């Protein structure tokens, strides 16, 4: 629980559907460490956020714990954030947090205290594929879909995860919160990185360097030809596609094309130069299919996945009148106070059309589309990006070359690339 409306409603829905819910807030960083305004309210990990979580748990009668994962977060997320920028890449800390903190030590802690699942307020769906693999699918609210952030999750992690909001629209979620009088119903969205309050990454990096006695390393800003255009105060403070903050006056707008960390140079050029049609993606994690080398190769590519029936999902979660009926059918096990030792097969025996039930529908996975070492997919190169048609050519089990049908703007090393087959997340990785 972050203290926001999404995780609040997720907790509420699960409680209503008979799960034994335990609310947990991850304490991930210290104010002193990340240089923030102590009085800025609401932001995840602030005291206000903890109080909001506590209030919601009290309202739904669930235990509430604050789990201190700041050491792990510092190591896996903050240190990685800094080192990626220094290497000239633009990191995605939310994804690092999901992959290395939330679905690792946090999940571990949940299991240790006897929980079978962790649940989050992500707008995404977890379903079971026809091959028995757990699938991640986009949330039905396309403007809010957060599946992008989940590409790093393992099958084991997915088998222990519930995402009750995937079948809902944001407006419905707020309405549920309002109807139940949750204090977080009107809370503002937080879009920034949780540990950079003011969204000013450069301020954060500069202060981090100062705190760790790392001297500034000014260098040249150059055109692709090598002509020096200006000076920068640290290549790490720039990102691909950036236009402002270059300090260069030029008749036409200049954009950062590349960060040459080795030579401490920032390369700039015009907008057109930002467009590329190819990229290599590394550290690939396959979700919908097994890693390519283990797939049987087939020559036909004809099969398509059946449309998922979204209406059932929406009806369960948002209609109160059906609730009473649904509770009556609840088997005894999920009302008991006992937590069983979790395991992939040891899931509570719920009715199959509950929104969170992993057996609810079996999607046909796209393994049947795999042919001749390549795969068609739509690919996102950052969160705010419309998935673009591309062909993926498998290089190794963990790396893929992506060739877009149309050139894409500002493909940025370090950002995550996520591959989709319609609304099924195939896998993802880091742009080289």
């Amino acid at each position: 629980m972050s203290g926001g409306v999404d995780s609040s409603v997720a907790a509420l829905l699960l409680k209503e559907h008979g799960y034994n819910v335990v609310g947990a807030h991850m304490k991930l960083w210290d104010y002193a460490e990340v240089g923030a305004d102590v009085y800025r309210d609401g932001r995840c990990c602030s005291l206000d956020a903890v109080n909001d979580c506590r209030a919601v748990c009290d309202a739904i009668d669930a235990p509430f714990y604050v789990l201190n994962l700041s050491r792990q977060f510092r190591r896996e997320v903050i240190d990685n954030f800094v080192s990626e920028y220094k290497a000239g890449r633009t990191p995605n800390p939310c994804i690092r947090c999901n992959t290395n903190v939330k679905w690792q030590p946090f999940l571990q802690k949940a299991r240790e205290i006897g929980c079978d699942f962790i649940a989050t307020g992500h707008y995404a769906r977890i379903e079971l594929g026809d091959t028995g693999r757990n699938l991640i699918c986009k949330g039905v609210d396309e403007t809010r879909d957060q599946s992008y952030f989940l590409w790093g999750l393992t099958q084991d992690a997915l088998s222990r995860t519930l995402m009750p909001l995937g079948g809902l629209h944001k407006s419905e979620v707020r309405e549920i919160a309002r109807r139940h009088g949750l204090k977080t119903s009107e809370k503002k969205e937080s879009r920034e990185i949780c540990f950079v309050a003011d969204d000013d990454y450069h301020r954060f990096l500069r202060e981090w360097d100062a705190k760790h006695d790392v001297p500034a390393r000014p260098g040249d800003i150059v055109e692709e030809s090598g002509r020096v255009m200006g000076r920068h105060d640290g290549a790490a403070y720039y990102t691909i596609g950036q236009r402002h903050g270059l300090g260069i006056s030029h008749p036409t707008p200049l954009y950062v094309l590349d960060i040459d960390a080795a030579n401490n140079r920032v390369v700039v050029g015009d907008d057109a130069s930002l467009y590329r049609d190819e990229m290599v993606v590394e550290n690939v994690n396959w979700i919908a299919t097994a890693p390519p080398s283990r797939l049987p190769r087939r020559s036909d590519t004809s099969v398509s996945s059946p449309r998922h029936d979204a209406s059932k999902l929406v009806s369960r979660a948002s209609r109160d009148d059906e609730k009473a009926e649904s509770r009556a059918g609840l088997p005894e096990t999920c009302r008991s106070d006992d937590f069983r030792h979790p395991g992939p097969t040891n899931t509570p025996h719920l009715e199959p059309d509950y929104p969170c039930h992993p057996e609810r529908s079996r999607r046909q996975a796209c393994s049947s589309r795999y042919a001749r070492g390549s795969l068609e997919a739509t690919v996102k190169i950052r969160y705010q990006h419309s998935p673009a048609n591309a062909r993926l050519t498998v290089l190794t089990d963990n790396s893929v070359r992506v060739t877009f049908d149309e050139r894409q703007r500002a493909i940025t090393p370090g950002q995550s690339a996520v591959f989709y087959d319609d609304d099924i997340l195939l896998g993802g990785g880091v742009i080289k």
Partner: protein
Amino acid sequence: MEPIYLDHNATTPVDPAVVEAMLPFLSECYGNASSVHSFGRDAKVALERARETIAGVINCEPSELYFTSGGTESDNIAVLGTAYRYRNKKKHLVVGATEHHAVIEPAEHLHHNEGLALDFLPVDSDGFAAPDRLAELVTDQTALVSVMHGNNETGALQDIAALTAVTHERGVLFHTDAVQSIGKVAVDVKTLGVDLLSLTGHKIYGPKGTGALFIRQSVKIAPLFYGGAHEKKRRPGTENVAGAVGLAKALEIAEQRREPDFTRLSELADYFIDKVTAAIPDSFLNSPRTRRIPPTINFSFPGAEGESIILSLDLKGIAASSGSACTSGATEPSHVLTAMGIPPERGQAAVRFSMGRTTTREQMDYVLEILPPIIERLRAMSPTYRQSRA
């Protein structure tokens, strides 16, 4: 099933007799004890009666007892007040290595921000401090030595009389934090030989927000608060008469039942300790078997993280704690266990059970049913524990 409370060292419920004793001072006898008129006088009489009762319990003069808001405040006045009073002549402090943060933090503040030298008196593997070590540390520059009577995490009881023998010889002041020990074992300031002593109400079935500080007749301290002549100007502020009355009643009740409670809880503790040791392999008792406040039982179960044990117990309706109540959420082992030389793998796996007046054998039997499977589950999930067993 009703949740089982085994965290009496964190706090205790207020005895109904104490509540009853306090109520009139909230509604009928509400005067400001410093007021000249009849309302004030009535309140003042009750306050002084309470003072006498408490002084009787710890064997001091009523004029040596000062009411405060609790143990933390009393500790702060003792440490800071003494240090500030003598700062021109004495610039050294000695503090026990296993003290509560309410003693350590003021001492560290004095060290880092006021230029006083600070030494920690080490303890042995049972948590006991040795008089010889104290003798080595104390100098003619020492303003104060502070060593707690009973430890909140392990229950270890220091031999305060042996330690004060050392400080008396050298003319050095000695403070003891008796927050955990008061009402559970004999606390007599003359037998202990201390110059200052802190006590609180809420660990002994009295209300939270009440406490007292014993300051021996000739000892001078600088006040921390300014704003009135209350408590001989050593602790200004309108007196919490209801609180003082409650504190006195709680201590009076505790004294009456101290010996039978001690016997009953010692037996129950021994029962529990023996059963746990038999049921859970690789378990370590961190509390000393003797010279301990009996209801405090601190165990380590390597391979299971303290926080995970506590949360698992909580979800089963059993309230216990790991580390002191003030330091939850961190995976650092407590400074108390570390000072005892306990290695991190054991320190991180520590759980404290602290029993009380309402603790029954049935409750402890339930814990004995629930605890071993929790430890087993946690150990089975721990990659490092399995490795070391292999």
